[in-house]
Structures are given as C-alpha cells and as structure tokens.
C-alpha cells in the first residue's frame, strides 16, 4: 500500500480539497480527471444556475451516458404503454437516449428519483466554464459503476409505468460518457433543482 499526492495530469499542480471526491478538479487549468489504474482526463460540462434560485447553491455530479437500445419483447400485467417508446426511432424497437446516473453518495430512494427524473426528461441548460466558487458535491461512483446502473434505470422507468412488469427482453449499449454538473439548491426540504 502506497500513498501518492494527486496532481493534475495537465499542469502537474497538486489538487487541494476539503472533501473526498473520486473526480479531481484542477482550478488552475480547468481539467477534471479520475484515477483508474492511471490518471484519465474526463469530458465534462457545468450547467448555469437559473437566475431566480436562492438558497445554498451546490453542483451535483452526474454521469451522462449516451446509450442505444433494442427492445425485442416485453410483457406487462395490466398495462402496456412503455417509456422507451418515446426514444424509439424505428419500428424495429431500437433507439438512443441519454441516461443520467447521479454520481454523488445518495440514499437509494434519492438516487432513484434523480436518475429517473433526469433520464425521462434530459435537462436543458446553458453551460458555464467554471464552478464560480460554488460547492461541488463529491462523486462517489466510478464510470464503470454508472454503466452497470444504466440498465437498472431503464428497467426502473419501465417498472414504474402502470401495470406490473413481467418481462423485458432488450439490450443496452453505452456509446459514450460525460460528467455533467447540474445546479441544485439545498433547502429545508432537501435538494431542489435550480436549472
């Protein structure tokens, strides 16, 4: 077991932080990286807060996975509408969608709610270049874990439609990934989106 100081792979500045995070951000050169064997730079975006949001601001990291799917068959007891339909391009049951996986350490129910909400309707935002001194929630989930959970999100979307899901035969492929920091406000009732 050996301990090393984390340095930016781009400018070699040490990364200082007050909170443990799997994603390392260099504010000198605006580079985000992670360590998985070696240092790996990540593609990322930061969404602008809406003007009206008041309260304690925080950026929440998400893995945005660009996925394609093919549905072969499905059966539901007492219902038939299904959600993947809205992303289907062809009659053959294939399509593409963005799956959003919250990367911060959330309890299972918050994790599920955020993942479903942002996957069902992809967030629209103007992006900004830096965090502007706003706190970032630390990421606790690797991209590999997020890819595993993409399937969970798809099945959850289908199961939460009316009726009881009995079978879903489909395949999902992750074609690309990006880290997206989405704006939230910490209130008394928890996290509120501030897009």
């Amino acid at each position, binding site marked *: 077991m050996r*301990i*090393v*100081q984390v340095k930016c792979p781009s400018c070699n500045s040490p990364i200082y932080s007050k909170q443990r995070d799997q994603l390392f951000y260099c504010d000198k050169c605006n580079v985000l990286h992670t360590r998985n064997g070696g240092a790996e730079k990540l593609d990322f975006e930061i969404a602008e807060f809406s003007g009206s949001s008041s309260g304690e601001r925080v950026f929440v990291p998400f893995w945005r996975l660009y996925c394609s799917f093919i549905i072969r068959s499905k059966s539901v007891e007492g219902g038939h509408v299904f959600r993947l339909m809205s992303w289907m391009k062809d009659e053959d049951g294939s399509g593409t969608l963005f799956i959003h996986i919250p990367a911060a350490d959330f309890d299972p129910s918050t994790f599920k709610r955020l993942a479903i909400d942002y996957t069902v309707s992809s967030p629209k935002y103007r992006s900004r270049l830096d965090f502007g001194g706003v706190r970032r929630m630390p990421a606790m989930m690797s991209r590999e874990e997020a890819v595993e959970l993409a399937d*969970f999100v798809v*099945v959850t979307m289908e199961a939460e439609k009316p009726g*009881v*899901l*009995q079978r879903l035969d489909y395949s999902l492929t992750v074609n690309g990934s990006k880290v997206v920091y989405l704006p939230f406000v910490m209130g008394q009732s928890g996290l509120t989106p501030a897009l």
Partner: protein
Amino acid sequence: MADISVGLNCPACGGAVSVVEGESTLLCPYCDSTLFIEGDQGVTTIAFRNKVNREGAMKASRLWWSRGWKARDLKRVGRTIEVYPIYLPFWRAMTRVAGWICGYEIRRHTDSKGRVHEQKVPKEVMVLNDYRFSEIATDPGDLGIRSLRNFSGETSFADFDMIPTFEATTSRDDAVARAKSDAQSRARSSAKVSRVTMERLHVLPRRLSMVYYPVWVVRYTYRDRMYMTTVDGVTGQVLSGRAPGDPLFQSLAITAGTSVGGLAAAVGIIMSSVAAELMIVGLLAGGIILYITYRFFRHGSEIVEGEFKNKPASVSQTIKELQSAARTLQEAYR
C-alpha cells in the same frame, strides 16, 4: 464502514493521515492535499489490535463452560492446558446490488363452499442495497471460525511482532466471486418473488479488504479428552468451541424423543381402524423421529458451537429437521 483506519503519513507534508478501509482517496487534514492509495489491486490490509489478555481469554472460556447443556462438572473437572493468541486473515467485502425481479405468486383461498381458488398475483420488486461479506482467507483447521462477526475496533499493526500470523492462502478473485454470489442470493431472497419471469440484478463490488483479526485459542481437557474454545481478541466473546455434553440431559432427551416417536407410531396403529393410510403415516412419523433423535445423540456426547466443517447435529438443527419432517408428513397426509 468508516469505523476502521490505519496510520500512515502524507507524502506532501508528512502529517499523520488515516485511511478509511477500502477507500482509494483521502485528504490530508493538515495541508488539504488530495491523496490516492495505490494498493495491491485495490485491497486495503488492516489488522485489529488485540485487546484481550491470557486471563481474559481463560475467563471467557470458563464462563462458556457453564452455559447451555454442557457437562455440569466441567467447571470443576475441566483443565486448561494451553492458551495462545493468533492472527487470522479474513477477506471482507461490501457489495451493492441494484436491479429488478419480476414475476408472480400464486395465492390460494377457500370460499364459503369449501372450493379452493387460485389467484395469480403479479409482482415487480426493486432491489437496491449494500451487502457485507466476510470469509476466512486461510484453512481454519478445527477452529470453527469461517466469518467475522465484529467489524469495529482499533486497528494497528503493533501486535504483529508478538502474535503468530496465519498466511492468507485463498485468492482475491475467489473471495470477490463469493462475495458477489452471496450478495446476489441475499438480494434475491429479500425480493420474495416465488415465480420469477425476469431478473436483472447488477452486482457491484464496492470495497474489498484483507483483515487480520486476533483470536485466542484455549485448549483444555475433561476426563482425558481434549476440547477447545476460541475467544475474539477484540470483543472478548467466545467465537467457537467444543465441550462435553451433560449425560443427564441427554438421557432425558433420548427418553422424550423415543416416547414421542413411539407415541406417533401407536396413534397411527390405533387410527388405522379409521383409515389404512393413517397407520402408515403414524409409523413413518415414529420412525423419522426415532432416527433423528438417534442421529443427534450418537454425537451428543459433545456440544459444539461455531462454524465447523463437519459439525455434528446441533440442538437447533435437530429441531428444524423435526419440524420439516412434520411438515412433509402433514403434506403427505393431505
């Protein structure tokens, strides 16, 4: 699982930092440097500090002698001959399971006219949970220890020079595979879907560590026979042990077992005037009860607690077997 830490130093400022088990990143509390742990395939090794001394181990062992259905003169006649500590290696893992299990269950209900109706109730169950797993990383021999029960305590390698250490001999990949299958089967049973039509479970290993845990071995004799107990070096609790059983209790239990078995057979014969199959069921019940009683007490001269490979039938296991035998008979009778 933030309850374990190991002392190390910050490479930037030299300050003492503590590593949370299984975590790959940490922060230096003095210079705010972000630090990364380059471990052996992401495995953190920790050791628990031994908190029990020789006297404590002997005391825990003697206390254990006087509990349960052990020989009543064990405390007077038993002689401790050897007491020593060892470090045992364990794999410890935290695994997250996320997914869905869909299917249905069949519910039966009887209406006022006595007709049985079957109803198919569809189910969809989400699974999203973290599961903890531990398993010994060496051949435990006759110690009766296979998994860890305690997960918190002071950690330090300070006792490593004094206490003999068992080498880890099982592979990391095997441990991860078993942790995954353990988490998966626990997730599956928590969903309680009896007929599964679709299962999509994702098993994500989150943390893996090698834990060296102090255990005291106490060997003793009772009427020229050797027995042993093991004592947890952190909590002071008895982990496993073998002890002579109480002869009086055994003979009482055998008498009870035999009479219940005989009674079941007798009832069967009396009832046979009503229906021939009742006699067969009764005889069968008697036979099974007698056999289980015999099987238990053939080894019954010894009381065994812990996770042994070839464990003689325990009291609770015997009761479970009797219950399942009763259930089988009930169903056969129906």
